């Protein structure tokens, strides 16, 4: 029986209200774009399965509300994440300045080996740009992160950035990954690994890809 996926990761989208976190996610999981998406309350959930180096990676993505008042709630999700998108809006200097605050929250509440990536969204709105690409690059370098400018509207760099973060998470969890590769090679089933991850495969096990 074909498995739906080999490994499971949890990624989190953080950043100020209105920078386009939900739009990035909808473009990635459903290839859809709505210019005025309904605002996120608390935390929303989506998922997608990617194939990286022959491994089926299911990613659960938690999309958070950006307003400060929600942070007591959203911080509860940090510690269970393996990767984090820090998102700002290139047309908002303020959202870029706040990245430092978001990054320090991540340092405080997320696990030590968390993988981070910096995203400057709305790159299609060049005429309203307030944050130069160089500024994004420099900040990412200072924090040791990769950096992408993206546009959910034009579908620019969306798959690339999600795939990059997933690759980083895979690399950071290489030990588990090697175990997985060994078992794939030996054609063993992955029940042991799945048990460890607390996943149970259901009746729909032959279904592949994204359920969204």
């Amino acid at each position: 029986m074909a498995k739906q996926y080999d490994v499971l990761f949890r990624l989190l989208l953080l950043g100020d209200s209105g920078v386009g976190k939900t739009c990035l996610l909808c473009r990635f999981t459903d290839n859809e774009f709505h210019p005025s998406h309904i605002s996120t309350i608390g935390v929303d959930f989506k998922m997608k399965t990617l194939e990286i180096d022959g491994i089926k990676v299911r990613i659960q993505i938690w999309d958070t509300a950006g307003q400060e008042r929600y942070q007591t709630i959203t911080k509860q999700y940090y510690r269970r994440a393996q990767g984090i998108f820090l998102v700002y809006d290139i047309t908002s200097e303020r959202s870029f300045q706040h990245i430092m605050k978001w990054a320090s929250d991540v340092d405080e509440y997320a696990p030590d080996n968390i993988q981070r990536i910096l995203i400057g969204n709305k790159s299609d709105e060049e005429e309203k740009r307030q944050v130069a690409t160089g500024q994004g690059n420099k900040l990412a370098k200072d924090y040791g992160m990769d950096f992408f400018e993206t546009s959910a509207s034009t579908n620019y760099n969306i798959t690339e950035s999600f795939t990059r973060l997933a690759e980083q998470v895979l690399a950071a969890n290489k030990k588990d990954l090697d175990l997985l590769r060994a078992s794939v090679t030996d054609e063993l089933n992955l029940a042991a690994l799945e048990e460890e991850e607390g996943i149970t495969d259901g009746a729909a096990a032959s279904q592949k890809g994204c359920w969204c």
Partner: protein
Amino acid sequence: MCVQLLSFFFCFLQAKNLSEELRKLSWSGIPRHVRPITWKLLSGYLPANTERRESTLQRKRQEYFGFIEQYYDSRNDEHHQDTYRQIRIDIPRMSPECLMLQPMVTEIFERILFIWAIRHPASGYVQGINDLVTPFFVVYVFEYIKEEVENFDVSSLQEAALRNIEADSFWCMSKLLDGIQDNYTFAQPGIQRKVKALEELVSRIDETVHIHMQQYEVEYLQFAFRWMNNLLMRELPLRCTIRLWDTYQAEPEGFSHFHLYVCAAFLVRWRKEILDQRDFQGLMILLQNLPTMHWGNEEVSVLLAEAYRLKFAFADAPNHYKR
């Protein structure tokens, strides 16, 4: 039947004092025609005494526009600009089924929310509060028009009518929020407490569903936070929310307490769909996207009846059915 119901309403609406009968009638749904005045009475905005109603309305409407004169210019001041910015970001991102994209409506919502926020600094504006204006606004627009509201051009209303709708919506929303303010203060203690209470309640009324969710590590906060923060408005079509609020306003502590039982009944309503899901992601996607698009009065009435039964069985005897 319907005519008779209406005449009962007319009779009780004219009564000198707010009768228990009006509450009882309203609990089961208010006819559209008398909904605006009934909501104003039930919320306590309009005095029961018929002789004082008109003067109270005039005074409150003036008071509201006094606040606008006094405070609204400060929206771009340094210490208010975050609030105003957040409100402006959120209004275009509200439920598409209402009239939000009309510029005049946007302006009205901006004023209502900004004035409320700066007069309630303990919570300030929190995302979700914007949704709570909509039912009042839509219901009060009906006072002045006969058509279905969905395609209605608000700017065709007379200015005086629009001002009344705005002020009435502000005061009724304020009354509602007074009862649930701890949902929106720092760390949102009201919501955290109610989500815990929901979990406890569901574990007692439907252990199978509760254990099923536990087994797949679904936490109540992951789906019910929004149920509390937005009073199920994100889970139901607007017409259902309006019907739900007939009951919430007729029920003592409807928004702050009875809502919990409605949430429990709502969750258990999906028991079969929940038990059919056999992994975390399936459950989460179901619970965050419950299929209520086709819902109408019928479904809401069933939900409310079940919530009432639960309240009756559990509210006054918190240990009676303890596991």
